[in-house]
């Protein structure tokens, strides 16, 4: 319908102005406007977006607030921070400590979650955060004092800071019942051996967040007036190049620890432990703190910074190499066009940039029985069962987004270690080398992974490094996707859901104690006898963009779809489930030379969003086609085995068995997603 008929005279014939007036001035919702104008809500949405593009509507942000936002973004980008909050500097009505405390208090609800253990260091700003905060919505919170205690001659002792914050977030408070600085290293050791103190330190070691201030060493700083270091001369540290103090520890301008007389006499969190905590919130401001803050940022002690605009600007200038000033003078473009009514896919997310880490946190806990991090890293996971002497180690790996591939197949009788990359991206060489070392039992290591340019480069670099370390490595690339290249280019094909069977065979061969060469040979045979083809109905969406990776028309399907959401080989009109299955099975039969009476294993795999109901419908037809050729299904798996985020679609894999492969397929294994006994 033509909405312009309904436009009141005062708007002329401009529906954009009318829509904007109703939205911004009259405060109507988009649905109400749609009704008033007689158009759809999507049209209203596009009027509003276009109006901003065309300059009919200008949204302005108060310059001081914009400046602090720009400084915050620049700090975040320059130092790779998780988050940064910068309070405007023009508001001088209140003392800085007070404003920083209020800002910290405002940020805490976004940074804390129920069940957290928050370590709290001492200082005026930290106390101010505690005094301003008031969060009642969190459960099972623990606050732990990050250092020992001090004399109560000043109002922001470690004890008071910890209890103020604990009160403010309704947390249980664990104090460290020992002095922050003791007389001798021997006394320190004795104190740390006390069961009570040991228990308190165990809580400290469990912290997943830490809140601290940063002290400069300039003459007027609190470090001189507080009682914390009254027993030593700060001159020793200044002479050694110290520029700041983080949680009672001295650092130099690059953030490196500075050695001094207190090293073995300080009771509290170590810099190493601090740096390993996931969320490290520093609240500090004031121009005299710029060198100390810069040092803490360079040292990696901070990943969430709360400061004021003048200090933030100072830090960036002191570090040089930023385009901040030009950015402050050129107002950034704030408008974004909304080209379609609904452009984002809904997902369960916290921080889109942390999805892999957060998933791995969950995986490591959920599958503790099978998996353990190698050297504390979640990007390299080893089987709990561990490598056995004289057994070939099996290392698999690849990008994430394919769960349960690859980490679901690590455990006894299957893979010994898995290297985990970013979403759809190969892991770098380093974690792969760590996996090789963890999996090595002295009989060599077998790398099995999908044939993709990125994986090949990274695994090859890793294999070279492993060989230099004296670990023999052989590689088998999986190439089971029959749609990805013609048969003449068998070696150029990509590896997809057939990984499931190929890993299983490789794991069994290793577990049976075969030599590295024999393991590689039988794995190659399994790869050559595995045939997969996928069909996608709807695209998936990356968590970072929440947009579809590509589009598939409303009546179309993508045939030959791989597991990275990359477009398939042909696009056709969607057909019935049986017709789709038939076209896949026809291509499989074309290549698989199976005789009546031969045995196969079948995998019907969801790409993520396709439910079991439809997978069984596909399996039904697979079984019919195999039965008609008198081919026996010896084993089958139906479900999510190698996915592509939330793509809608499925793949069918057939493993053409022989006696050897059949025995290896039934060999016992125990992993999170495949158990055979």
């Amino acid at each position: 319908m033509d909405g312009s008929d309904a436009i009141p005279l005062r708007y002329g014939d401009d529906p954009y102005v009318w829509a904007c007036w109703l939205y911004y001035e009259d405060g109507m919702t988009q649905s109400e406007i749609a009704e008033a104008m007689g158009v759809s809500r999507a049209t209203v949405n596009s009027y509003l977006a276009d109006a901003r593009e065309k300059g009919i509507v200008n949204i302005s942000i108060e310059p001081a607030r914009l400046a602090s936002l720009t400084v915050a973004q620049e700090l975040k980008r320059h130092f790779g921070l998780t988050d940064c909050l910068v309070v405007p500097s023009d508001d001088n009505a209140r003392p800085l400590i007070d404003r920083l405390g209020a800002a910290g208090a405002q940020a805490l609800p976004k940074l804390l979650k129920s069940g957290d253990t928050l370590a709290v260091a001492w200082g005026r700003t930290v106390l101010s955060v505690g005094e301003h905060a008031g969060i009642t919505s969190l459960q099972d919170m623990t606050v732990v004092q990050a250092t020992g205690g001090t004399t109560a001659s000043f109002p922001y002792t470690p004890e008071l800071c910890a209890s103020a914050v604990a009160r403010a977030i309704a947390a249980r408070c664990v104090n460290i019942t020992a002095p922050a600085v003791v007389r001798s290293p021997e006394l320190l050791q004795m104190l740390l051996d006390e069961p009570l103190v040991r228990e308190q330190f165990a809580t400290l070691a469990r912290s997943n967040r830490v809140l601290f201030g940063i002290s400069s060493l300039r003459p007027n700083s609190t470090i001189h007036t507080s009682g914390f270091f009254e027993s030593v001369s700060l001159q020793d540290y200044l002479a050694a190049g110290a520029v700041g103090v983080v949680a009672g520890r001295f650092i130099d301008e690059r953030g490196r620890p500075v050695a001094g007389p207190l090293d073995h006499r300080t009771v509290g969190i170590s810099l190493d432990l601090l740096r390993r905590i996931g969320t490290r919130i520093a609240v500090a401001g004031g121009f005299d703190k710029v060198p100390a803050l810069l040092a803490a940022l360079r040292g990696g002690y901070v990943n969430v910074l709360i400061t004021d605009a003048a200090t933030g600007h100072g830090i960036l200038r002191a570090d040089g190499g930023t385009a901040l000033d030009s950015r402050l003078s050129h107002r950034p473009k704030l408008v974004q066009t909304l080209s379609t009514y609904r452009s984002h896919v809904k997902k369960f997310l916290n921080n889109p940039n942390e999805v892999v880490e957060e998933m791995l946190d969950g995986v490591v806990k959920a599958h503790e029985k099978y998996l353990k991090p190698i050297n504390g890293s979640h990007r390299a996971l080893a089987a709990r069962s561990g490598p056995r002497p004289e057994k070939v180690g099996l290392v698999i790996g690849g990008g994430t987004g394919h769960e349960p591939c690859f980490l679901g197949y690590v455990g006894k009788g299957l893979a010994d270690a898995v290297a985990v990359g970013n979403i759809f991206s190969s892991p770098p060489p380093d974690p792969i080398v760590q996996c090789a070392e963890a999996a090595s039992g002295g009989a060599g290591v077998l790398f099995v992974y999908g044939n993709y340019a990125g994986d090949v480069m990274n695994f090859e670099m890793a294999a070279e490094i492993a060989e230099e370390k004296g670990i023999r490595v052989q590689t088998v690339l999986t190439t089971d996707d029959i749609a990805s290249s013609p048969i003449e280019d068998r070696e150029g094909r990509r590896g997809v859901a057939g990984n499931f069977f190929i890993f299983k065979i490789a794991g069994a061969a290793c577990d049976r104690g075969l030599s590295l060469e024999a393991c590689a040979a039988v794995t190659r045979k399994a790869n050559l006898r595995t045939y997969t083809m996928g069909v996608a109905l709807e695209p998936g969406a990356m968590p970072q963009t929440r947009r579809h990776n590509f589009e598939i028309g409303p009546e179309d399907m993508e045939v030959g779809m791989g597991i990275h959401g990359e477009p398939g080989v042909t696009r056709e009109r969607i057909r019935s489930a049986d017709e789709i299955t038939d076209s896949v099975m026809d291509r499989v039969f074309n290549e698989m030379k199976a005789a009546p009476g031969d045995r196969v294993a079948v995998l019907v795999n969801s790409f993520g969003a396709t439910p079991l109901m439809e997978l069984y419908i596909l399996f039904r037809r697979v079984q019919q086609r195999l039965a008609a050729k008198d081919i026996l299904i010896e084993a089958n798996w139906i479900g999510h085995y190698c996915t592509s985020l939330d793509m809608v679609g499925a793949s069918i894999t057939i493993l053409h068995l022989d006696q050897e492969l059949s025995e290896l397929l039934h060999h016992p294994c125990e992993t999170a997603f495949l158990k055979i006994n």
Partner: protein
Amino acid sequence: MSEIAVRRLIEMFDAISSDIGAERDRLSELDGAIGDADHGITMAIGFSAVTSELARTDASSAELSSVMTAAASAFLNAVGASTGPLYATAFRRAAQALEGCDALDLGTCALLVQSIASGIRERGKGQRGDKTMLDVWLPAADAAAQAIAAGKPADAFWADVTAAAQNGANATRSMVATKGRAARLGERSLGHMDPGAASAVLIIGAMARTLR
């Protein structure tokens, strides 16, 4: 002398990182047309790791070569993928080429562009016409060599290099991919600019802006 050059090199990475960050979604969309839609994200992760690593570098004691080495490992450890080894090798070759250099004069800039190009070619085993980032880096390296041979001043040097890069990227539209995931698409990759070529243009543009 060296400290100023080191700062400029760090600034260069900062500029690359912020340009890539600003174009992240466009790069991912280009990749979505022919690949797996992660190129912008991967590059942004990689260069932001480089800048945060370099933010911890002491410009007064570092050398041009050590900045490139630090950039190489930061990039590689952050991303993996295929861009990880490609740019890591590129930066490592650049580190070797810049060994002993303490000023970023035009000759050194040309060396930088050329060693990055040859590092990528070596690791990716590719060539011009494959519809990859090499279609940008190789012409840019040639343009740099020619500009030096012709004794051109800085502005003309960078104008030639960026023009060669942009032309190279535009040329990928009419190529059929033979490397990487786009290769599986065959002729369906026609008409799309290669995302790796597009990001290479951004990198070279940021280099020109900061090193000019």
